[in-house]
């Protein structure tokens, strides 16, 4: 079913706030998880809200993407809390969360997943600069991103992850807020995606809406544009890293801070193996390496770390770009990952974050598969 969210005081943001407030006030929902502008700050952070009054600070759509909230939702749901929570997530956050469900790091049991057409994002550093320079108000941002489909924001480029994203639309949710192809003068549309979502929308008693005609077409356009951008990006990054020596150069600033993996939503390990005693080498070990090669760069195990991480989770990469965001040395980790992820996902016919029942490729096998890779011919 589809319902309409009217503008409130000529504001889309307020209209959305009103919708979320109704949702929170309904008996179905105990708490809401969505981006909220923190007091006296321009920081917009995902927050768990139980007081309907606090909804006024919610900013459901903004260029701020400080972290992939899929990871946070897993913290909220990996065990039972006895409360029903509605969570608003970007498409890549949903995908990340679905991947985490497969890894038993979260559960949909007590959640209502609300998806939203992706409002794109700036990188962390760009967002800070943009807020200081000349921020648009929240409504103007929405108009700019969705009506005009602008590719820049006051001189700031949207992040590479967003520009090359081939799936900026939510799937497998309980309900979705539709924005692309929607005539905002008529409000916005919420579409139910599951039985539970439908029941909630029905209980809200709001006026029904129908699917905007141009939506499909616009979605296809966006996908095409992004897909082209992606191809170009992959070609470029492949050229930059197509040998081990180039890869070394690419990662030579890596300081083993592991921020990329800390911010990666699908790197679900409590502690990375590279942080364990396995890599706490004996002093003599460094000497042995140096003696073998004549020189050894420290910290060691940097390229090793990135290649391992590719082997561990490239198949699950949802393309959110938070790894690049997190890098203090400004290494474009994301692009390397995305370019590899594409190949590994295709190799196993795997689509991360779409269906929680699709098992991760390395957790299963088929007796008759990949027979061509066996043997030395």
């Amino acid at each position, binding site marked *: 079913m589809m319902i309409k969210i009217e503008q409130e005081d000529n504001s889309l943001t307020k209209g959305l706030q009103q919708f979320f407030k109704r949702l929170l006030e309904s008996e179905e929902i105990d708490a809401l998880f969505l981006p909220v502008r923190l007091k006296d700050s321009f920081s917009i952070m995902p927050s768990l809200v139980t007081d309907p009054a606090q909804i006024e600070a919610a900013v459901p759509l903004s260029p701020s993407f400080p972290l992939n909230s899929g990871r946070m939702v897993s913290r909220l749901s990996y065990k039972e809390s006895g409360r029903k929570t509605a969570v608003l997530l970007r498409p890549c956050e949903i995908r990340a969360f679905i991947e985490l469900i497969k*890894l038993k*790091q979260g559960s949909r049991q007590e959640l209502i997943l609300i998806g939203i057409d992706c409002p794109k994002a700036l990188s962390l550093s760009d967002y800070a600069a943009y807020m200081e320079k000349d921020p648009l108000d929240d409504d103007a941002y929405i108009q700019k991103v969705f009506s005009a489909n602008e590719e820049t924001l006051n001189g700031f480029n949207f992040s590479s992850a967003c520009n090359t994203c081939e799936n900026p639309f939510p799937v497998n949710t309980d309900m979705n807020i539709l924005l692309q192809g929607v005539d905002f003068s008529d409000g916005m549309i919420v579409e139910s995606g599951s039985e539970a979502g439908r029941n909630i929308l029905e209980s809200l008693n709001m006026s029904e809406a129908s699917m905007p005609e141009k939506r499909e077409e616009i979605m296809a356009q966006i996908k095409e544009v992004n897909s082209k951008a992606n191809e170009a990006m992959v070609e470029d990054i492949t050229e930059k890293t197509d040998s081990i020596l180039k890869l070394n150069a690419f990662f030579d600033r890596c300081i083993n801070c592991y921020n990329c993996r800390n911010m990666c939503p699908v790197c*679900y*390990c*409590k*502690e990375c*193996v590279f942080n*364990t*005693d396995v890599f706490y080498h004996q002093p003599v070990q460094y000497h042995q390496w140096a003696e073998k090669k004549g020189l050894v760069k420290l910290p060691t195990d940097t390229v090793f770390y990135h290649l391992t991480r590719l082997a561990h989770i490239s198949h699950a990469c949802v393309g959110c770009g938070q790894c690049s965001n997190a890098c203090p040395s400004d290494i474009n980790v994301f692009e390397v990952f995305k370019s590899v992820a594409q190949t590994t996902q295709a190799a196993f016919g795997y689509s991360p974050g779409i269906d929680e029942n699709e098992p991760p490729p390395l*957790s299963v096998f088929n007796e008759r598969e990949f027979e061509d890779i066996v043997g030395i011919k």
Partner: protein
Amino acid sequence: MAIGKTLVAGAGLSGIRSALDLAETGYKVLLIDQSDHIGGLLCQLDNQFPTSKCGYCRMLPMFDRDRSSQHCLRKGLFHENIEILLSTQLMSVEGEPGDLKVTLKQNPSLIDPSLCTGCGECERVCSVFVDDPFNEGLTKRKAVYLPSPQSFSNAYTIDYTACTRCGECEKICPTGAIKFIDQDREKFKILVVDDEKIVRDSMKEWLKEEGFSVATADSGQKALELMDDRLFNMMLTDIKMPGMDGVELLAKAKEKNEDLCVIMMTAYAAVDSAVDAMKQGALDYLTKPFDPDVLISMALKVYHEFEIAEARVEQVDALILAGGTQFYKPELGKNPYGYGVLPGVVTGMEFERLISGTGLGKGKLIHPKTGKPVRKIAWFQCVGSRDVQADAGFCSSVCCMISIKEAILAKEKYGQDLETTLFYMDMRTIGKSFDEYRLKAQEENQVRFVRARIHSLDEDLKKKDGSLLARYVDLQGNIHEDDFDLVVLATGQRPAKQMTELAVKNDIGINPWGFIETTPFSIIKTSRAGILSGGSLSGLKDISDSVTCASAAALGACKIMHEAGKQPIDAHAIDMDDLTILARENPRILTVLCSCDKDLSQTLDLEKLKLDLDRIPENQSVEIMDKFCTDEGWKTLADMIQKTNPNRLILGACLPCIQKQRVKELSKESGLHSSLVETLDIISILKQYPDSQIPKTTQRIERELKALISKARFKNPVPGERLESNQNALVIGGGIAGITAALSIADCGYHVDLVEKDDAIGGNLLWMDKTVDNLDIQAYLDEKVKELESHNQVTIHKKTKTESTAQNPGEFLTFLKKDGEPDETILHGVTLLATGGSQAPLMKDNEDPQQKELTQKEFEMGVQDHKIDPEKLETVVMIQCSGTRDEKRNYCSRVCCIRALKNALFLKDKNSDIQVYILYRDMMSYGFYEEYYTEAKNRGVIFFQYDSANKPLTQIQEDKVLVKTRDLLLDMPVEIEADCVIHATGILPDLPAELADQYGADLDTFHFFKEADSKFRPVDSMNYRVFSCGLSLKPCTIEEAVASAEAAAIRAVRILSHERLVSGKMVADTRTATCSMCEMCVDTCPYGARFVDSLEEKIVIDPAACQGCGVCAAVCPSGSAVLEGLDRRLMLDVIDMALL
């Protein structure tokens, strides 16, 4: 308390299985084999049904793995509780169960295995070639040889019958391992009896040349006179002599000297009488005229086996005979297929050795004579089976499946365009997955199945390329002549000669064919108490049945030992304290290299080696020593260890010095635990490099040693985890399998809860009257039930169901729901699923108010209740495979054909005028049941074969049933008006999926219990504490159900006998602090060894279930799942070292 000990005679598949089951339980085993290697036939078979590969190693112990070998069984076997004696024969048995005196004879080895480094110099210089029996004579070997290509010990053996004692090998052996025993052959006195002087004289000359004392006699009378004078060791006598003939002489001579070895000599035409003589105690025979070499080798064999061989008398509690089977030799019969005459005719075993990687073709399929590639192969079934002209009124049970396997294998290995044809009479696919396998062969691999018996085989004279022409007739009566490059004869079983002889001498019953005979309802008990038969000795069995039978025999032995008051060993009473302290110490590694009597500095830069290794902080020192193998060297080493006090040792030496037993000895003397010793076969490595390459060689040795130092550094000295293990059993199901399993476990001294859902114990046996061999089933059941009810170790829960189960490592907790009694919760360590099965219901298309169409069970019960009077019946039709062996239930139920034969014979007994017709697809009268098929035919039962596409139809008429089928041979429709039709509907298992799932067991496609390995672990589930037997496992006869129950029982007892189970040192663990609980490790573990402890929120491990494969560690990205003993740190370090 005395520790129980069993002798297992025969170290093939079943012998090994019996031995391992007993050893795991904690009993001592003496495992002997007359051949020079263990593993039996299976060592020669690289590929087994159904994977076309091998799973032999899956028989190895699953817990306390470090006490036994953990490598391919082809390399040999080692277990702390098993003493293995090769080239050893069991001569006699005396005494009672629990106190048997066995006499063994072991052939002396001319090569000391503790000195042989396997360098092969002896083989190089040996100039004698003989047929290699390991390759079925397809290849040649020297008189000094490696017993099996893969044996771990790698020690050479001398074939004393072929050896000419030229002494070259003794001279060249670098370690002095070869010593020809000073043989005083003159003391060996031979008497030659023949009426022809020339024969006497030439034989005397030949034998004297070999150094024996020889006397001659020209008649039996003379011979006996000579025997009064002196004691002879051996007599060679002609059979046909004037006056007293050889057979009479044999009898009289044996009266005088029981131990005299007699060889008969006879003309070719009189072989029969020679064979008769052997039945009367002759050892062997020679056919005249014979080659002096044949005579000499036979004399030498006797000399070695009876004179030089050392007799050894052992006291054991029980004896398991596991001598296996022998195969029919086509060349000794009428040989219509020209085996040995025509090129390209081989036996099944030869085919296996032809294509083996270690066989003639070295993995390629070539013609054994011409060496050309082979494109067309035929398999002929029933060669020496089901053939009274070959003295075989029996079926050999397994050849059909072996041939299908070989055909599939040939296709898979050598290309699908290879043409394979299988000629057969009845395709006896008598196992639960066999029909599917046949279908796979037919459809997927395009193996051609032709129902025809080949009359004869000739060379194709038109083609003249050595191809063979086979002539046969098809069902329509058309004659065909097909040509083949290779013909494989599926040769049938024959009793193992030596075992039959042993049986005859020791009052162990044999059947008319010479196979060991077992007692009613048992396939393991021989006629002599305390002596059990395992495996194929009592009739050829496939791997699965052999293993089951061998386990059952082990159970029999276990019961005997328990009843005799003998104990298993508690091996786990190790003092852990010292080791725990050791674990906290920093590694101090001592590296010792043995120069093996060579100057190592000629091949290695020892200075550099020492210098480099000394730079590794943990490595204390590198020492070079000479000859560990000598007492002196050994002592020096022990002293050095005492002095330097290392807590890890690296030993580089030749193979015999680094063998596990040797290391164990060293550890005993030096106090350094054997698991802390790493070994390297440096001599083999050095051999790979020319002397000139000192830097390269040094680098290699250095690399290998560094990798070992890494390993040693990370070694945890504390032995495997110990798991408290519950010692009670739960048996679910009170049919004959459940009853037997419960009694068997209870008889071994462990408590059993038996749960039965009905209020009567007995299951299917309750409705059965007699077996096909006329045994009284009710009497048997009564006896068993009485035994069960009065057993103080058994608690019977009738009208009870198991409702829910929780499994913790080491223990199950099962909630019993009782009808009419308070519910109960029981704790148990093992679970046996013996829920049985039932006859499938009859799918009736017709209205049948008078019950004219019956199932076999309905018919038998009708007779018992006097509702059916055989005397009033005129015509009875039996329809086999009714609703089974088709798309829905494509498996053979194994028992229905035999049951039909039984019923047919019963009807004929009661009413000789009755007409009985049996409509069948393949008559599954396997093994010795074939006799009942013949008997039924003799009694006038008429058999119609039908194919699955044209099933018989029935139509109810007034008081008759009209059965319509087709006579395939006459190619005409047949209508039979029957008074009653008996359908063989087959067996349905009765094992609910929920129940199996509750205990972590799986079901197969047909809802039978799924074995962990259908061949090598035939009663186990993947959950190592859960077993199944009887009909829930697979369709089976009563004695087969009993055997599977006994097998399941010993598998359970081997766990129950331990208060604590010890894991291997290589065992999985979890680093809980870093674990994210994604449960990938839980899902990936093939053994279900990982559990989620939801209370503590962590992953726990059943260390006994874990087999140390490390797959869990590889799926865990954070490294929280670890394989102790081969963990990530060690592996990365080893890789580093490998790439230095």
